[in-house]
């Protein structure tokens, strides 16, 4: 079974809230960061493909993408990093990207090369389910689509149908980035959305403090921590320590 799917199955069984950690490929020693994050309690890793025009990202991940591109990172490094992680670890890996780099690489070619490199799932920020075909699924990859506070009932159903593995709920209207407070409407809204889903649900965007994790851990199947870790990397601190500070 696909590693993403089995992770969420076992999280449900053990009634535990999983932790997904995001890092931008090529912003520092990504393979080492993944090891550190796994040791610090991450259940899965999102590997971000840097893009020149990341419209869904706030300043922290924008800067990381810029650094990674300046380092000469390309989509091929995603596969290199995944293969290196796979030599030592079975942690589920989810490719997180904008559509253009994947289109340019070739959707089929990407799906096959990702699966071959040991990647388990794909999440494309600017690819809504109605524009996606079965390419990734055919290659055995989990496909995650986004839901947002603005999603209507019809869209919740469409996203659920198209997703395999889990659905990613965006906690607030906005871009990625650390926030001191979560959206006050989040918990109520999350319960409504969750009741309509067949798939497990992960919540991301803004989760950067221990109290966020405490608030959410009984409300969803997993949380995603991104900018707080990327900022630690930017400031030459350990992303593993940063993750422990939130979920440890």
């Amino acid at each position, binding site marked *: 079974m696909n590693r993403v799917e089995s992770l969420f199955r076992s999280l449900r069984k053990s009634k535990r809230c999983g932790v997904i950690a995001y890092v931008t490929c090529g912003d520092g020693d990504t393979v080492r960061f993944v090891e550190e994050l796994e040791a610090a309690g991450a259940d899965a890793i999102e590997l971000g493909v840097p893009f020149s025009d990341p419209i869904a990202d706030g300043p922290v991940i924008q800067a990381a993408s810029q650094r990674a591109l300046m380092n000469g990172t390309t989509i*091929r490094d995603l596969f290199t990093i995944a293969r290196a992680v796979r030599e030592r670890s079975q942690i589920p890996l989810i490719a997180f990207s904008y559509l253009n780099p994947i289109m340019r690489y070739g959707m089929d070619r990407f799906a096959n090369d990702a699966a071959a490199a040991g990647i388990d799932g794909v999440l494309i920020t600017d690819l809504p389910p109605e524009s996606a075909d079965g390419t990734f699924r055919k290659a055995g990859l989990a496909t995650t689509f986004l839901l947002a506070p603005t999603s209507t009932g019809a869209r919740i159903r469409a996203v659920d149908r198209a997703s395999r593995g889990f659905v990613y709920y965006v906690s607030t*209207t906005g871009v990625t980035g650390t926030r001191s407070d979560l959206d006050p409407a989040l918990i109520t809204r999350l319960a409504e959305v969750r009741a309509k889903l067949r798939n497990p649900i992960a919540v991301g965007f803004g989760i950067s403090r221990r109290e966020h994790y405490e608030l959410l851990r009984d409300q969803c199947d997993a949380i995603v921590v991104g900018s707080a870790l990327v900022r630690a990397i930017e400031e030459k601190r350990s992303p593993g320590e940063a993750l422990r500070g939130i979920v440890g």
Partner: protein
Amino acid sequence: MTALPDRRGFFGEFGGRFVPETLMAALNEFESAYRRLRRDREFRRELDDVLSDFVGRPTPLTEARKFAEVCGVGRLFLKREDLNHTGAHKINNAVGQALIAKRMGKTRIIAETGAGQHGVATATACALLGLQCVVYMGEVDMARQELNVFRMRLLGAEVVPVSSGSRTLKDAINEAIRDWVTNVRTTHYIIGSVLGPHPYPMVVRDFQSVIGREALLQLRKKVNRLPDAGVACVGGGSNAIGLFHEMVKHPSIRLIGVEAGGRGPGPGDHAARFSGGALGVLHGTRSMVLQDEFGQIAETHSISAGLDYPSIGPEHAYLQSIGRIEYHDCNDGLALEAFHRLSEMEGIIPALESSHALGWLMRNPMPNAVVVVNLSGRGDKDVPQVAAHESR
């Protein structure tokens, strides 16, 4: 020919709606409001009144006899969008969308701008309708279009400098989208060109198509026939689609879009998407995009801020792919030459954007032909930049 775009917003394989989920509901809301309002008599009357009494439509069609001779063109007519209030065609779309936003109950408007013309038009429409206005503009563009920055501020808009990436139009759109994702419930994003996710390429085209409708009527009165050719510059492509939309259905009319050839054909030196681009997705739409082999968006250059953009409206990509419109480019130098010639010979200072259409015509004679060029904007905004460029 069936009406395009299709229900999902595609022109053939181009177009569509490639955005983060947060925006999907707002795009659906905008699309249904637009589809309802464009058939609403009261709305159409309100728009027509604004266009005639505030914008100053119809704009004249001026014959340029001396410039035609220099180009080797039979008879040359300029569609004078430069004579619109605020000095360019951008106002046609800005007032249309601002009226829709108001009907949708949105209180805050955001916009991006390159040359500043769309920003000024949006700030003007917002002042007229009492809407709050925030305009995103790249720092490079703010420096080369200082006058327009000051105009927007005079009109009560907040101008937000964008310092990321190439600090031009592309980056201003990135920031505007980030704002929209954050404030989507109260805010309408007035995109200024035939770009972005569905329904923008359709809505902006429809609001700009008044240009071609008027031009064909005016030409019939003057010469009692259709033109042989229509020529317009193409950044995102709104002034070109505006002129061409009514002409596309007449196969005898040759249609020519002129892109920015910049300093030359090298990567980063131009904004000629058809000669240097590949199929891609940028800012919510699938079209021809200047990019590297790994799908990173390329930097662009043009002397004209309004043409300095790595992608092109999806309907242009479609019309190019079926061979209905031909696209060529005009470099910085030739555009500057046309800027001077038209000013001296006809008493009309054209925008640097429109100068690209004129520059192409100077090198491509069409003897005996009746040609319409869209003079999409006036060049007052470009005078300080041209002066600085030439004193170097």
